[in-house]
């Protein structure tokens, strides 16, 4: 029997070996960097060129200016579109958080006939493409004689947005142990006290996350606003109509930069706030990652 020669334990690892051990980490870092550049690079360039002193969005760099922001500010159409979007998104956010939280409570805590049907209806809304909901809304309103306006946009936004709130808040309610609610009732709390002091602190982060997503869904929605707005435009519809008619315009860069900056602030501000809120409860990051992945499971 031939014995294999035992390999001597390496005293100092050669550079190649060390490199090979580090390679997965480097490759992972490169992958993350690549994805981030592809996702955010274009938007950064867009922001950069909103300050270029040239009416053509291209090289060469002609110098720094803020005149596109001034022009955008005095452009009535641009301002109306942004204001319309903010208005619709705020109304949709408030209503869908109220309706969605009510429905989530009803679906997770009550047992009754037809529960499966209602849950299925909520789920179906999330799967049907917005284009089809938009077209269906347009046909529906035209057949029933309802004039298209911001109101019809908001109604259709509400219909697709509150089921999202239902999904996020239900996930929070399911994770949370019902025995705590029963304990509160057993200890003499009224239904209202139990909701206020036991349930709300637990599902608070879910509701907060749901309201942020609800606002963003309405604010960013293009398809439904496009088909159900008639002559009233939201911000995405305004950008779309400009791009359909003409070449790229620097004022679109300016408005888009403001919108993107506000959205970045909103997402990171919300993260910061929720981190403080959930830290108090103990498991900060776990709750947050749970929230992010919870809706998709």
């Amino acid at each position: 029997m031939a014995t294999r020669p035992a390999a001597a334990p390496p005293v100092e690892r050669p550079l190649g070996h060390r490199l090979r051990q580090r390679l997965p980490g480097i490759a992972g870092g490169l992958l993350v960097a690549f994805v981030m550049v592809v996702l955010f690079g274009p938007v950064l360039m867009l922001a950069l060129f909103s300050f270029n002193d040239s009416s053509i969005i291209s090289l060469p760099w002609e110098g720094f200016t803020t005149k596109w922001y001034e022009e955008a500010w005095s452009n009535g159409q641009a301002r109306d579109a942004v204001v319309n979007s903010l208005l619709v998104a705020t109304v949709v956010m408030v209503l869908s958080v109220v309706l969605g939280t009510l429905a989530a409570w009803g679906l997770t805590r009550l047992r009754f006939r037809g529960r499966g049907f209602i849950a299925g209806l909520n789920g179906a809304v999330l799967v049907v493409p917005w284009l089809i909901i938009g077209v269906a809304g347009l046909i529906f309103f035209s057949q029933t004689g309802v004039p298209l306006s911001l109101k019809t946009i908001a109604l259709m936004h509400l219909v697709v947005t509150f089921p999202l709130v239902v999904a996020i808040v239900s996930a929070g309610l399911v994770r949370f142990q019902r025995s705590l609610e029963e304990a509160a009732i057993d200890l003499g709390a009224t239904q209202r006290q139990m909701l206020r002091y036991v349930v709300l602190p637990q599902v608070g982060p879910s509701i907060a996350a749901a309201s942020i997503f609800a606002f963003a869904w309405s604010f960013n929605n293009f398809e439904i606003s496009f088909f159900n707005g008639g002559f009233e435009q939201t911000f995405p519809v305004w950008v779309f109509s400009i791009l359909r008619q003409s070449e790229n315009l620097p004022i679109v860069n300016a408005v888009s930069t403001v919108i993107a900056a506000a959205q970045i602030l909103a997402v990171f501000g919300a993260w910061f706030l929720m981190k403080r809120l959930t830290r108090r409860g103990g498991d900060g990051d776990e709750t947050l990652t749970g929230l992010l992945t919870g809706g998709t499971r």
Partner: protein
Amino acid sequence: MESASIPVPARRHPRARRWLQPLAFLGTPTALLLVLFLGPMLVMLGVALDRGLLDGGPGFNLTLTNFTDVITDPLYREVALTTFEIATAAMLVQLFVAVPLAYVIAFKAGRWQLPILLFLVLADELNPMVRIYAWRMLLGREGLINEGLMRVGIIDQPIDALLFSQFAVTVVLATSYITYTVIPIYGAMKAIDSNVFEAARDLGAGWWTTARRVLLPLIAPGIFVALLLVYIPLFTDFASPALVGGTSGYMLGNVVNDLVLESGDLNRGAAMSIIMLVLSALFALVAYRLARINRLES
């Protein structure tokens, strides 16, 4: 045996309240869904089955011609094929990026895990129209990429195929939905006990075998959820092809838009929408089933 009938009168009142509570919580939301979700769908189905004012006159005239017209039109069949190609290409690109990316986030990122996830959420929250516009700016004939390359001297002529092509639509779509591809797969990976990787290595499996035989079956439910969330919107997207697709990137969503708004043919537009709705529903059902089955096995 006769004693069973005693508590009946006493029960009446609680039973009446039993459906009152669900009504209080779910009445308004459900009414909203019935009127503004199911209602429009049914009206659209009705319009799709109607001959229309021009062909059939006023009133409802039942017909299937809208459906047969749309299905047999060779132009639409070609568009359907293009749509399938673009949506599938965008989906594959996303999966090829998302699986390793989710792996890095879940197992290698350490304290960077949450910030990376947050940036992905941010990428999704950014206004889609802003994103499309930004790509249009980069990819155009006088766009930054062409101008930059020409200035450096790598090319003499602008590359026309960058914008208004299937390539442009694929790039824009892949970057638009990547968040919804990564997060379900990441969720599935988080549920994995990382000891299985060590076990696989101890048993002599290389990284490729581990990825294929251990990791992939475990994240299959996440992949099916990603397909459910992303593939259907990819199929029906119409803003991206309308703005960066030109004539070669014309997709089914544009057909619906042109039928309904450009030619005002509500009946055929409705028929096309119903067909797309049925296809998405079938696809959603299959993906959902697969996600469920795979979860039970794992």
